């Protein structure tokens, strides 16, 4: 009998078997899916802030896992993106732009949310942005998992982020930071707003890093 606390995960696995968000699977695939869930539940334990409930997958993660790097069927991708767009929360005070200097610090900071990190509060987290992206051109230690963000605002013609002309780019950028799956169903980028990794103030600082004409990104 599996331990009680693993029942929700096995229940989730059962939902997957019923195919609520996946294409029809052959019996072998269904058995393998069940075995995988059993393996995951049995192989991990809680440690620090990282509990085994982190293995629970929402529809997006389940679908993107099953795709194993391939593109999702268009209808499925669109459904995931639509659900992600519905999760978007605009800044509560309507302000999109903070301080690019704070944004740079956040982009450099790769800490947070691991089992060796003590706090789960967004204030304790960094954005880990340089892990995957080039951002300010002076920083050579950047990753290549995501596209380069060098000259982000400038290339999109943003001379004044507060202007109506910049509104579309500003909203697109906020949406990317809040829930990257809104525009790319299987995006590798964490859902910083939606998952509560960073708060509004922190997101505003990252917006400034990318869009403030005075930011080093746009020089």
């Amino acid at each position, binding site marked *: 009998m599996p331990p009680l606390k693993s029942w929700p995960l096995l229940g989730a696995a059962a939902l997957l078997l019923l195919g609520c968000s996946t294409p029809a699977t052959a019996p072998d695939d269904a058995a393998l899916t069940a075995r995988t869930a059993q393996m995951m539940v049995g192989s*991990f334990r809680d440690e620090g802030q990282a509990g085994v409930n982190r293995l629970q997958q929402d529809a997006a*993660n389940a679908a993107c896992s099953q795709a194993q790097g391939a593109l999702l069927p268009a209808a499925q991708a669109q459904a995931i993106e639509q659900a992600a767009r519905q999760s978007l929360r605009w800044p509560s005070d309507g302000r999109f732009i903070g301080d690019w200097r704070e944004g740079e610090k956040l982009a450099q900071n790769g800490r947070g949310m691991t089992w060796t990190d003590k706090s789960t509060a967004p204030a304790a987290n960094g954005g880990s942005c340089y892990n995957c992206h080039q951002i300010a051109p002076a920083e050579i230690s*950047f*990753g290549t998992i995501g596209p380069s963000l060098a*000259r982000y605002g400038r290339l999109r013609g943003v001379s004044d982020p507060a202007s109506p002309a910049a509104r579309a780019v500003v909203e697109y950028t906020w949406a990317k930071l809040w829930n990257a799956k809104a525009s790319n169903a299987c995006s590798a980028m964490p859902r910083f707003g939606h998952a509560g990794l960073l708060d509004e103030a922190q997101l505003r600082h990252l917006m400034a890093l990318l869009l403030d004409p005075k930011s080093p990104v746009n020089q």
Partner: protein
Amino acid sequence: MKLPPLLAALAALAGLAGTVLAQPGATTAAAAGPAAVTAPSTAPSTADGIAQYRAMLADGNPAELFEAKGEALWQQVRGPKQAALTQCDLGKGPGVVQGAFVELPRWFADTGRVQDLESRLLSCMAQLQGLDAAQIARTPFGQGEQRNLEALVAWIAAASRGLRFQLPQARAEERQAYALGQRAFFYRGGPYDFACATCHGQAGQRVRLQDLPDLTRNPGDGVGFAAWPAYRVSSGELWTMQRRLNDCFRQQRFPYPGFASEVTVALGVYMGVNARGAESVAPGLKR
């Protein structure tokens, strides 16, 4: 474009002077941003500079100290049963060490399951020497009996240095372990929605300045699965594959994988089978 590290190091050492310049990595087809300013083609890239650093490090690998300790431990009479490990079967028969590492993980008849090297050592330490496998599995890395495991892993890996990975897939259990490992590899979860594949699912990526091998296929001799166990200069520690996987899961923001748990063995099968034909350089040297 990424050169094989040794070739890049030789090129750098052959007299390419000059500053290390930033080189933008490959961007995906969906990239919205521009390529950053590129370096002139004759100047060394960041990757070349790192390769040169690594070549300089390679002269004298502290892993040798662990290997020597491991060799002694293999022969040492220990534990409640007062026995050595010299009859331990690592897959090629009792006591056969050479060549065993490049065929692990594999299925074992006596335990009826697929096991990697660390898992198999736990079995032998328990069965032959009467040591407490569960206790050792609960011991944090770098402490107590885990230190002995590191040394044994280093020595056993060294006995296969230069050989090429050829994990067996003859048994259904081994093939299933591969399939489970593949599922685990692409399993997205945790607050960052990361999977192993997020970093290791395609070629040509790096996180900060750390190149990431593509573990869905053979990424080359001495790379990826073929690079561990290894001595990590930055922490002064010998990291086994179990420890490498543990820290991967930590950085993925996943919960804690049990030592030698099924998911860790399955991932070893997936990576090891994908690396078929790659030359093992273990124990290697890492930053």
